């Protein structure tokens, strides 16, 4: 079971949270101008990083706030959490096998 640090509530058990998948997938500025393949890239294609991964969590059974986290997808270790709209605290997004 993961122990997740909500930026507002502190450390809580994983069962209080919902997972939101990959973070920082920006909604297109001008959706009407997008080609089909650009839509496919936005909607479906994922980085699926092996290593430190920026992802979203939702504290559903708590403060009901969304936030971002950096977590290693092999060790499951949380490197940091940060609020929606903020940049990752460490610029480590990328696949670094461990």
């Amino acid at each position, binding site marked *: *079971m*993961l122990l997740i640090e909500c930026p507002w509530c502190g450390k809580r058990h*994983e*069962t209080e949270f*919902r*997972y939101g*998948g*990959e973070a920082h997938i920006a909604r297109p500025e001008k959706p009407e101008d997008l080609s*089909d*393949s650009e*839509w*496919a*890239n936005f*909607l*479906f*294609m*994922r*980085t*699926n*990083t*092996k290593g430190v*991964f920026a*992802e979203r969590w939702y504290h559903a059974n708590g403060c009901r706030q969304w936030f971002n986290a950096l*977590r290693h*997808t*092999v*060790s*499951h270790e949380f490197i940091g959490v940060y609020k929606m709209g903020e940049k990752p605290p460490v610029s480590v997004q990328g*696949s670094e096998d461990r």
Partner: protein
Amino acid sequence: MTKYSIFSIARNAFSHHKNWPRQWRSPEPQKEYDVIIVGGGGHGLATAYYLAKEHGITNIAVLEKGWLGGGNTARNTTIVRSNYLWDESAAIYEKSLQLWEGLSQDINYNVMLSQRGVMNLAHSLGDVREGVRRVNANRLNGVDAEWLDTDGVKEFCPIINVSKDARHPVLGATLQRRGGVARHDSVAWGYARAADMRGVDIIQNCEVTGITRDGGKVTGVETTRGFIGAKKVGLVAAGHSSVLASMADVRLPIDSHPLQALVSEPIKPVIDCVVMSGAVHVYVSQSDKGELVMGAGIDSFNSYGQRGSFHVIEHQLGACLELFPIFSRVRMMRSWGGIVDTCPDASPLVTKTPVEGLYVNAGWGTGGFKATPASGWCFAHTLARDEPHPLNAPFNLDRFTTGALIDEHGAAGVAH
């Protein structure tokens, strides 16, 4: 190579079974191959076998970073069935079931297919309607399917709690009698042996670290054992598909998640079929050793760690006891996780890619074991002819651009 038969058993009895030949070679990699398959699980080995058998291509290497069938092939719950809803899925899974039915003879290796019947339970009016619809859809596609009412469920599997007072009462079930289980290790080993006999090089402990290209065309792979040239490269790496595809700058619509399963201590035969329930979220069968084999849904978060969280197991055991109160004092022996490659529409990718000479067989998600023979068969066709077989043509990458998704969440969701 010895053909396995009752005579070979008798012959080897004279030497006290100490002189059986090795089942496959451990060759050094050559400099170049016609086809390299990355991933030595069931699907990769099946691909190599059917390339050799159906298409006469034998200059093949299967590269495996660990040992054969040590990933999801060894971690699934061994269920085999073909009762999928949509035409595209029914066609490829039914092809698979037909290959299963002749597989032990075909590869001269007992895969211990046991067609004991697979039951998918319905617990609500919505489930009942969906189940009946699926039975009708299956029949139209030539897949055997029956609808059982509550009494029929009780008769087919007497230990299920069908009380009306249950939190999730059993209102009926779909039944595919030709479904069942097979021995997963045998599938990997059998395909490996059969492919090796036809000249395929199976190279273990050889991890692919890069995919080399020249002018947008694949020229080979960098590995922990050096560069190996190839005209065509097929990626069959399940949970690690995105990692490999990114080496060739190909993005896939895949997220990797842990999927956990567990077994109980061995008990006497008590359940002679496979029972699945999407609504209460568990599936159960009993192995030949007597262990109850159980599984359910994926852990929510992305992972490559081959383990998941305990609350997921707790949840599925709660569901199991709801259906089978008789198991309340059975002890669980061990649990494990595999990394499954899930697609947004719960359907696989067996396809060419934008990179010439690079092919991907992935996205089987939570239910790839049953598809092993047809997956290999179709992927071999795609690799050999450079175009998909009609059976796997719908399972391409373009469907995420065109919108022609094959939404199998209903048939694939929890039921594996």
